[in-house]
């Protein structure tokens, strides 16, 4: 049964603008209501207004990193699904820190193919219908 994508709001965060923009474009074309942010701080700010159902964020970013942003956002939006992507080994430590604080975030290795990301979004049961 195809998942109804309408009304699912996604926040994409990456300090690499081109990646954030192209991902947002792809997700928008696939029917998700998507907004891109270029930094962790900006993401937290946008999340207040946007109230996204899904947060897709890069981990390693200057300033506030992805894990930090995810923790803050899920604190105010407990139902928000978090998917982190990273191409770095240091991520393990960051995620471990988050787990200790009681969070469980999905992690995808970089580079992610958009097909894989879409499949993931479709497959997951945690998306509210």
């Amino acid at each position, binding site marked *: 049964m195809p998942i109804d994508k309408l009304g699912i709001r996604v926040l994409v965060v990456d*300090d*690499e603008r*081109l*990646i954030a923009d*192209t*991902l947002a*474009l*792809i997700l928008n*074309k696939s029917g998700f209501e998507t907004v891109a942010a270029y930094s962790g701080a900006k993401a937290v700010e946008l999340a207040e207004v946007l109230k996204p159902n899904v947060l897709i964020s890069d981990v*390693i970013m*200057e300033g506030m990193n992805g894990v930090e942003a995810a923790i803050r956002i899920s604190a105010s939006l407990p139902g928000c699904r978090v998917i982190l992507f990273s*191409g*770095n*080994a*240091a991520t393990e430590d960051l995620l471990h820190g988050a787990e200790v604080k009681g969070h469980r975030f999905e992690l995808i290795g*970089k*580079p*992610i*193919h*958009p*097909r894989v990301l879409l499949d993931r979004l479709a497959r997951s049961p945690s998306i509210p219908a």
Partner: protein
Amino acid sequence: MAFDFSRKVSKFVFPDKPRKIVARYLVAVALPLLALAITGPFFTISTDPFFLLFTLSVILSALYGGWGAGLTTTAVSVLLNAWILEPRLSFQVTDPENVLRLAVFSFEGCLVSVLVGTIGSLQRKLEGERERLSVTLTSIGDAVMVTDREGRITFMNPTAEQTTGWSATRAMGRQLDHVFRIANETTRAPVENPLHKVFELGRVVALANHTLLMRPDGSEIPIDESAAPIRDAGGNLIGAVLVFRDISAEKKSEAALRNADKLASLGRLASTIAHEVNNPLEAVANLLFLIRGTHELADIDRYAETAERELQRASQITRHTLSFARRENEFGPVEVSELVDGILALYSNKIHGKNITVKKRCAAGTSAFASKSELRQVFSNLVGNAVDALPNDGTLHIRVRAAHCHCGATTRVVVADSGNGISAAQLPHIFDAFFTTKKDIGTGLGLWVTKQIVEAHGGCIHVRSRPGRGTVMALCWPKIAPTQDVFPDIVASDLAPVTGNESD
């Protein structure tokens, strides 16, 4: 060999230790008896006005047994003569002329004994001193070579034989330049023999390391050396002594540390690179996905163009990375500006992340005579440190220009940052191995290696820093290879194997 023979004779006449007392006095008594046996039938002291044979026995006895033996021989000679002179077979001497002769002989005998005996004991002392010195120099762990004022080798110890690959017998008397050939470790240009400096300046000269000793068999050993003048009692320069040491072991551990730094910087780069390459790849994957879902030609065009640019970016990163890992150890002129660009590209992620402004000013055509990979390592360390020290929105200055430095180098490079600076207490230590203030991520090897590389190239490095204001690292590199005469060809006959008891 004449030298050895005279030495042996001298050794026999003046042995190092006094001979056994029995032997000495047996000889002292036997010699005048022998003299009497020879002269008795023909003449005695009374008919031999020069007391020839008896005087000779006194001299020989004193030489052999010291002044005591000489005196004994004198006394025995007098007694024997008194016994043989009229009246025969009695110790009485009646002829006053003979009494006078005997008195003169006694006096002469005493004088000769004391003189010869004293010379003997002095000689023994001298020999002993020389022996002690030679034993010391022989057993010393460092290689020691001594030359005369003309630079000819007069002594070399076994360590010097082993290190140079020359046997002492072969090297003796040769010019030191011929036996002790040294070259700069990195440029391989011949280095002036420290001996010349010693003769010129008349004082101790220590050579900077980075010296290779070229052995006659073609092998090379890194050494550490110093030379000092030898003066006589009047203060005149009469020669020089050269002391050097094989430092291969130290060099090896230094090389290991240098590699560690290379690995550390490669490790740092690896994570940067993963990021730098993954980002464009991901962007390209996204763009291709968009292209497949689009029918708008204009959009496709735009996506394709962006993808192309991203791929170019990725390939640029990999190209610089490869050049970093490539071993380019040959020396040659290196375009500094170009090399710096490559390093900046590798750090671009960090630089953009911190929003660092890079101000690079390069005079056209500034080149350094260097090994490309080592120069790259130097700039990677300096730029890396500056980027580490810089806060967000800081500024990194890089200036390359021609200049004349007191070290003789001609290309000057300055890497300056407006970062946190270095405290006065830490400043003297930053070039030490393992000194780091970056707890987990620092190795403390970067600047240590940098200094080594720079100095090995014949350049110099200086730092100025103010805490809270920033740091300036200034380096000088020679623009061209230091030119010097090439070595004179080594002739085959010089290739003597080193053996302990080789004779010439």
